[in-house]
């Protein structure tokens, strides 16, 4: 909001901006609005998976990214600047966040070593102690297969087979007795702060807060972080004057400078490649934000972007298998 709507309103006197904090219910609400024939939202902040669903259902507007969005300052078209993050014809990427690991920096049993490889999560011999993982298959299955020798590029092909699923669970079996399974993003930071776990996965913004704002003895492990995306969709069916306004706003709100500006408040990476060099300091803490960005080159040496289509096809089945495995 600080980076997007306030400067836009300053340029457009008399414009009223109403914020509705309902993104978590975006899919259900837009379905209901569509049925009622009364679209009251102009622009909706959603995760990529929801954008894909809304697009498939015809509830979000398909756009020509190069026509609607500003090019980079050097003239690079928006479609190239956002690149692979445009995962749907309806999706306008804003930020990249990630699920990654934090670890305590005061674990004596590690003998001065610190985890820097995703497979250290599964290495109880060198990195003993309780760990925390999300109580869902997504992310955990990919990491487990990578640590069973599967090439990152082949992970989803392997996970499509019974043998591959068994391999992933076999790796997870090795740490199951030393794992706390979390359901809320706040769980791992709290467990780390309390010393209940020595390392654990969560969203990178939560770890930034734990380390930089709460000054806890915790550090980031970025290896094999799993990217997820957040961005805008424009509801289908807006009247002409509202569509004109929202197209004008979204072009401004997603330009190179604005996406760099949002990083002054939270450690989420800008969706445009051209924004990365412009990321500055935290607005209140005064620390450089680039080293805290999941997209910073030093942190992004090995990353995953979810295969959204794969998970859309297999999510229900994998969720059921994972819950069955947990209850064994």
């Amino acid at each position, binding site marked *: 909001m600080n980076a997007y709507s306030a400067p836009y309103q300053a340029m*457009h006197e008399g414009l009223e901006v109403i914020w*509705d*904090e309902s993104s978590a219910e975006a899919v259900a609400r837009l379905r209901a609005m569509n049925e009622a024939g009364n679209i009251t939202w102009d622009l909706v902040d959603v995760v990529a998976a929801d954008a894909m669903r809304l697009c498939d259902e015809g509830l979000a507007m398909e756009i020509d990214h190069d026509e609607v969005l500003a090019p980079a300052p050097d003239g690079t078209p928006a479609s190239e600047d956002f690149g692979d993050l445009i995962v749907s014809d309806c999706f306008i990427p804003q930020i990249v966040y990630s699920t990654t690991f934090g670890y305590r920096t005061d674990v004596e049993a590690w003998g001065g070593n610190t985890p820097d490889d995703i497979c250290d999560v599964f290495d109880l011999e060198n990195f003993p102690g309780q760990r925390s993982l999300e109580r869902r298959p997504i992310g955990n299955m990919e990491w487990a297969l990578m640590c069973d020798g599967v090439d990152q590029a082949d992970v989803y092909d392997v996970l499509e087979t019974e043998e591959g699923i068994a391999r992933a669970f076999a790796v997870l079996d090795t740490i199951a007795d030393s794992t706390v399974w979390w359901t809320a993003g706040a769980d791992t930071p709290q467990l780390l702060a309390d010393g209940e776990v020595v390392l654990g996965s969560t969203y990178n913004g939560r770890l930034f807060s734990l380390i930089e704002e709460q000054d806890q003895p915790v550090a980031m492990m970025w290896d094999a972080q799993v990217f997820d995306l957040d961005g805008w969709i424009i509801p289908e069916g807006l009247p002409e004057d509202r569509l004109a306004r929202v197209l004008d706003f979204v072009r401004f709100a997603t330009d190179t400078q604005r996406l760099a500006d949002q990083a002054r408040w939270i450690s989420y990476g800008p969706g445009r490649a051209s924004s990365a060099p412009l990321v500055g300091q935290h607005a209140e803490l005064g620390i450089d934000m680039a080293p805290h960005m999941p997209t910073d080159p030093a942190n992004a040496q090995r990353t995953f972007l979810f295969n959204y289509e794969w998970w859309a096809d297999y999510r229900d089945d994998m969720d059921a298998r994972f819950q069955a495995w947990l209850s064994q």
Partner: protein
Amino acid sequence: MKLKTALMLTSGAVMAASMAHADAHMANSMTLVSWGGPTRPAR
């Protein structure tokens, strides 16, 4: 200097008029939907 200032003022006035003209066919309010906080939800 006076000419430059006059040109700048004219340029500014043209920009403002242009922006007002562009705004004329746009709605005066918009509803933006957000997560309501700095942190993103679970997937």
